[in-house]
């Protein structure tokens, strides 16, 4: 297979396979979560489940002062790489073209050097997160192989994307193909690993807020 | 491309889009310095540098026209021009159809192609000798 054939494959059938697994996986995962159901609460309510749930979806992004002080690194590095991922994935002109091709609409992009710089920040943040995971007592203890796999699959598209943009090490078609392939790998494992939190975070935050909200506490 | 003008300045865009113009002019400056210090000549092939439309003209305009403008008729036209900066020459080769086939900036006391070539001198000597001999014989 030549490099352009490889590129055409990842842009064509490869991408298709990845999208099929991704979408089917997400929907099936949501179905298997939601259809388990939840018993109605029979206790006399003191507050609203809905407003508590919705509030927590948002408020859980902002830790209270004491939590921030105790988990400063996790919060800061977490914020950095999540913002970085958002910027690099959704505000880079070529990526928006891809979304436009699929959704039928696009949105404005950031200047390329900004996205480029953000990619570096994100890679550094992810490396720091890994170093933290490998050195912190708690993280070392609770980390599973899946955590490392997911870390690897998250940083790969960033590294290959950066390399493809700057043409480091290999020819441009190969780099671009590897970049797309790495994204496809990410899409394939997404529904079946903790990456799923990208979607279920809203659900679990809602439940948390609803449980508390019902009792009149804003969680 | 009129052949009446020795150098065609066809300026459309003069913005330094590719960021290659300034470094090139600096390279010429360094080459000139090198020529003064060591006598070493430098040749730059303008066709090896990616330039936006108008940038080549911008370079030529910056260099300007100097005292020497020579035409060469060898396998098509060639123009050898000393720019307003002595020692900086623009050598442009055309083919039969007046298309530019290559263009060089030479930083030298005189482009090699202007000098009479030893082989040509030797051939010229023979030719002249034969001509004179023929004349003598005729007379």
């Amino acid at each position, binding site marked *: 297979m030549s490099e352009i054939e490889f590129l055409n494959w990842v842009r064509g059938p490869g991408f298709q396979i990845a999208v099929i697994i991704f979408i089917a996986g997400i929907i*099936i*995962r949501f179905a*298997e*979560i*939601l*259809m*388990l*159901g*939840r*018993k109605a*609460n*029979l*206790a*006399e309510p*003191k*507050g609203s489940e809905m407003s508590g749930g919705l509030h*927590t*979806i948002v408020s*859980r*992004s902002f*830790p*209270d002062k*004491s*939590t921030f002080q*105790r*988990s400063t690194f*996790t*919060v800061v590095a*977490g914020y950095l790489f999540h913002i970085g991922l958002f910027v690099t994935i959704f505000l880079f002109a070529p990526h928006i073209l891809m979304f436009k091709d699929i959704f039928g609409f696009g949105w404005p992009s950031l200047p390329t050097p900004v996205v480029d710089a953000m990619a570096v920040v994100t890679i550094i943040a992810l490396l720091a997160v890994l170093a933290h995971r490998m050195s*912190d*007592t*708690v*993280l*070392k*203890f*609770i*980390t*599973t192989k899946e*955590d490392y796999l997911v870390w690897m699959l998250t940083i790969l598209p960033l590294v290959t994307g950066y390399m493809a943009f700057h043409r480091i090490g290999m020819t441009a078609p190969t780099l671009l193909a590897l970049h797309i392939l790495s994204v496809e790998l990410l899409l394939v494992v997404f529904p*079946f690993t*903790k990456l*799923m*939190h990208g979607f*279920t*975070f809203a*659900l*679990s*935050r*809602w*439940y*948390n*807020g609803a*449980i*508390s909200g019902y*009792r*009149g*506490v*804003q*969680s | 491309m009129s052949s009446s003008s020795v150098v065609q300045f066809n300026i459309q865009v003069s913005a330094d889009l590719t960021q290659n113009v300034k470094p090139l002019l600096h390279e010429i400056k360094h080459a000139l310095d090198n020529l003064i210090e060591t006598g070493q000549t430098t040749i730059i092939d303008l066709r090896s540098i990616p330039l936006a439309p108008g940038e080549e003209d911008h370079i030529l305009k910056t260099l300007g026209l100097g005292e020497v403008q020579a035409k060469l008729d060898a396998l098509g036209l060639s123009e050898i021009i000393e720019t307003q900066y002595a020692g900086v020459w623009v050598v442009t080769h055309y083919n039969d159809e007046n298309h530019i086939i290559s263009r060089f900036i030479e930083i030298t006391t005189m482009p090699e192609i202007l000098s009479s070539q030893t082989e040509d001198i030797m051939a010229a000597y023979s030719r002249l000798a034969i001509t004179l001999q023929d004349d003598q014989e005729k007379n």
Partner: protein
Amino acid sequence: MSASLEKGINALKEQVDSTVASFFSSCVHCGMCADACLFYTETGCPTATPIHKVEPLRRIWKSEYTLLGRVGKMFGLTAKVDDELLSKWETKVYDHCTLCGRCSMVCPMGIDIALLIQKTREGMAAAGYAPESLIGATKRAVTIGSPMGVKLPALMAQIKHVENDTGLTIPMDVVGAEYMLLLSSMEIMNFPEFIEAIAKIFTKADVSWTISSEAFEATNSGIQIGVADIAAELVQRIVDAAEKLKVKTVISPECGHAYMAIRWEGPNLIGKPFSFKVRHILEILDEFRQDGRLKINGKEEQRLTYHDPCQISRRGGVIEQPRNLIDMFSDNFVEMPDAGKMNWCCGAGGGVSTNERADKVRLKVFQRKKDQLDEIKPDAIISACSNCRIHLEDGLEEYNMDIPLMSLTETLAEHLE
């Protein structure tokens, strides 16, 4: 019938619902819950990381209720729940967690880890991995009616004392009373002043109230050990008594988990809504305050602080009321850092105080409360949970701190005109 692994696994399977599934789907192993848990912050032991404690439940969810887990199970790749795992997890689930729910407030994914621990305990208990002393307390609660073995004659003796001391009447089994008061064994045996205070306040407030001779025990060992069937049985006793006496409101006393059990879990445990309201004593007192039924005489000059009992504040929603009440008799009130819904547990809730095996660790993690107190140096601590109160006293003694502990209800009663 006896406890078995099969029963435990079945119990865990029963516990998984959409909340559990979404919680486990969202965990990113960030470790922030550890920083929110006093069993980690004060011991530095990573096994105390809250989300780690619910591993048995996670495994059941993964292997039974996820596509990948089920496929993995066919090939023997998905981790199993076995006796070895459960016996290893017993201390993590019962000794190193007070169900305080602080982790649930901190998790960036919104995982209610305390709820997951509660659910995990259901499986642990069904499989026979509950601590000996909790089993004992539960048996006493069911057979005798109180985890501490307090029987009706003991209560009647205490009531007699109070009536003699105060000249007030404690109404027993009054049909049609507005309020039915529940008591914890701890209050009956260690703090009879509480009964005295209630008698005083309710008389002054001029409301009708009663205590049922058939269901006076507020605590619910079934909740703590994690056996819903037993918890339901204990709740049903109260429901029966309240319906028999036709009361409008059942009052949960100064006890954390009792409030959780009767107010929030009760109707769900017995599977139908209550025909009466359930309120915490602080809610009732605050209602009295709002209605102008409480007249206060003189202010407390000491520097006071309030210890939020987890099940009442964070998990129960009674946060404003104690502060409103303290304001009535104090101008010198100071909040602990992280007060309110983010307060730190005393270290003895969720059955930990009953669990003798955990005596050492609960005193160790008291360090967290000590640090909080050291920051504000109060003259006295007010609380609204007898269990917190006993443990705070133990802790203060252990750490050689001389700060008196007061019940909010009792202090309020002292300041009545």
